[in-house]
């Protein structure tokens, strides 16, 4: 099957006034099949949001290709790009700043239809009502302004606005991290239900491994502009092989498990600057397993079967420091 989205060797660099370059995204490759959701996890500064913005052509890549069905996203510009924008939409992290405070909720959701000239003008209002119902809002709320909604309701509005154009691909950039846990669960369940009903394809950006495991079919772990590990979700969480992935898993807290407190595997330090990323393995400086080889030779992304790819010289040889993973390794 041909994937819906195919990204190859994507690079996004930002020049600095000092003449240096921020290597925000430095060669990522992935593809997403229709109906799947592809999660990208990583810490701040890893380049996950920049990847999302590049997919939407909100920032321009310096290298690589992005193919959405038959369209080459990386080369389109101007009017041709605009005509396919309805196929791809985005949901942002902060529902406070991503809605125009002066537009009524109904106008905000209708605007994409008007701008892109989608569907008959007379049917648009009905379409907006329909979207309100699908995201769990009453159509009477159309006349309210964003400040009259709670955070969770605003995120529902953003989702309605993203879905109103019947997109093939929705890029969600940390859509629940600004929300309280109870509201977060409501929005995650909504996203999951809509995906099932409409056969949507998601690229889902998050720093929260548990959220990604809940909603994604495939996951990539990003560190300093690169994917260090990617796999189908079940496989990644059953048998992760990269020390950075382990450190993220070990750092995730669970209300059920007090036994790990204090004894867990932690890495020291913080990610280095993407201005001058380490030449060899970018995680080597924080990795407790690093050897001289890691500091001099760049690890290739090796395939361990079933699309499980790991960029570590010692992948498969190290014993995971997490008991759950060691048991199945």
């Amino acid at each position, binding site marked *: 099957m041909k994937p819906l989205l195919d990204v190859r060797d994507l690079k996004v660099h930002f020049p600095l006034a000092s003449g240096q370059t921020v290597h925000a995204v430095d060669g990522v490759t992935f593809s997403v099949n229709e109906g799947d959701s592809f999660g990208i996890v990583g*810490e*701040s500064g890893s380049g996950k949001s920049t990847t999302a913005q590049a997919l939407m052509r909100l920032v321009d890549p310096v290298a690589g290709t992005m193919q959405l069905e038959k369209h080459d996203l990386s080369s389109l510009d101007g009017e041709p790009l605009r005509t396919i924008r309805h196929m791809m939409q985005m949901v942002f992290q902060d529902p406070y700043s991503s809605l125009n405070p002066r537009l009524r909720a109904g106008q905000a959701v209708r605007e994409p239809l008007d701008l892109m000239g989608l569907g008959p003008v007379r049917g648009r209002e009905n379409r907006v009502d329909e979207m309100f119902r699908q995201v769990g809002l009453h159509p009477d709320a159309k006349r309210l302004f964003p400040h009259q909604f*709670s955070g*969770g309701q605003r995120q529902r509005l953003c989702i309605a606005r993203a879905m109103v154009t019947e997109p093939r691909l929705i890029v969600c950039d940390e859509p629940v991290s600004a929300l*309280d*846990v*109870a*509201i*977060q*669960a*409501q929005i*995650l*369940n909504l996203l999951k239900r809509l995906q099932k009903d409409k056969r949507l394809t998601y690229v889902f950006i998050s*720093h*929260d*491994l*548990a*959220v990604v*495991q*809940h909603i994604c079919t495939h996951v990539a772990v990003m560190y300093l502009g690169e994917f260090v590990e990617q796999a189908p*979700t*079940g*496989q*990644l*969480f*059953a048998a992760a092989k990269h020390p950075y992935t382990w*450190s*993220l*898993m*070990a*750092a*995730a*807290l*669970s*209300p*059920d*498990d*007090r036994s790990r*407190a*204090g004894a*867990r595997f*932690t*890495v*020291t330090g*913080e990610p280095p600057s993407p201005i001058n990323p380490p030449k060899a393995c970018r995680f080597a400086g924080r990795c407790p397993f690093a050897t001289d080889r890691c500091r001099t030779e760049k690890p290739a992304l090796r395939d361990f079967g079933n699309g499980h790819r790991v960029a570590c010289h010692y992948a498969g040889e190290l014993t995971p420091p*997490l*008991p*759950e*993973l060691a*048991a*199945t390794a």
Partner: protein
Amino acid sequence: MDPVLEVKDLKVGVDTGKSVQSVLDGVSLRLFPGKTLGVVGESGCGKSMTALATMGLLPDRFAVTGGSITLAGEDLLAAKPSRLRQLRGNAMSMIFQEPMTALNPVLTVERQITEVIELHQKKSSAEAREIALEMLRAVQIPGPEDRLAAYPHELSGGMRQRVMIAIALACRPKVIIADEPTTALDVTVQAQIFRLLRDLQMQTDTAIMLITHDLGAVAEMADDVAVLYAGKCVESGTVEAILGAPAHPYTRGLMSCTPRLRLGAAANDPQAEGLGEIPGMVPPLGRFPKACRFAPRCALADDRCHTDTPPTYETAPGHSALCWKPTAEKAVA
């Protein structure tokens, strides 16, 4: 053992100009030396207001309308502003969520730490500088001698939070209130900060009030837990009791909405996939239901829950819930 901080039946109201709305309604908490109390709930439930009331830092128009707050035997509500200034930063201090806004951007790290020491401990500036250096070492900032001269913008988020912890701990307070101290940080840095707080607590016997919406953080850090909902403490007990056998439907709801990481063999267990939901949201101030405040969102609520204020039900010694049906088996859908 006596509690070092005791909040009893605390009531806080906000004057809206037309009327006084209840913000906190009878919140009681006890903090013990060397122990951590987790205060949990969604935004708008009164977690931060409890902290600010304790510190004597309530914003304009908010006032304590009843109850008592006692720090090591001293009645804080009767204390004069000058006495509170002596206590704040000295006997009790606070770690805020956003280190970038809580630190002064135009003062060096050294000045921000020595300020609190010189103010409270009558040390010379040379001695204060020594203590500041010692604190930076204690919070494990690499190259502490060089960092003394740094400004907040020159530090990463994790380093800024370490500086804030250094300031909070500089006078060896009896009580630290940490209001969502790791929410703005990455997970691997959060793990480091929690470990640091635990280690320092063990050395100094400080009592910590950890305010958080994250039950995972509670499991990691807390000895005791208080769950707040719409200005009331709806459940309290030891962390084992609250997380192991939550009695209040709200606590159970929070547990069921928290996504869990499933590793190893559990990763492919389809049974574990569902995520619970609490319908609706926390009511805004002034619109709290008359009887049980959680009733409109509660799957177990019946007529009595909507008309009569629920009693405090003790499910086990030291574990109580404000609910008509605390032992009902069915968890919230």
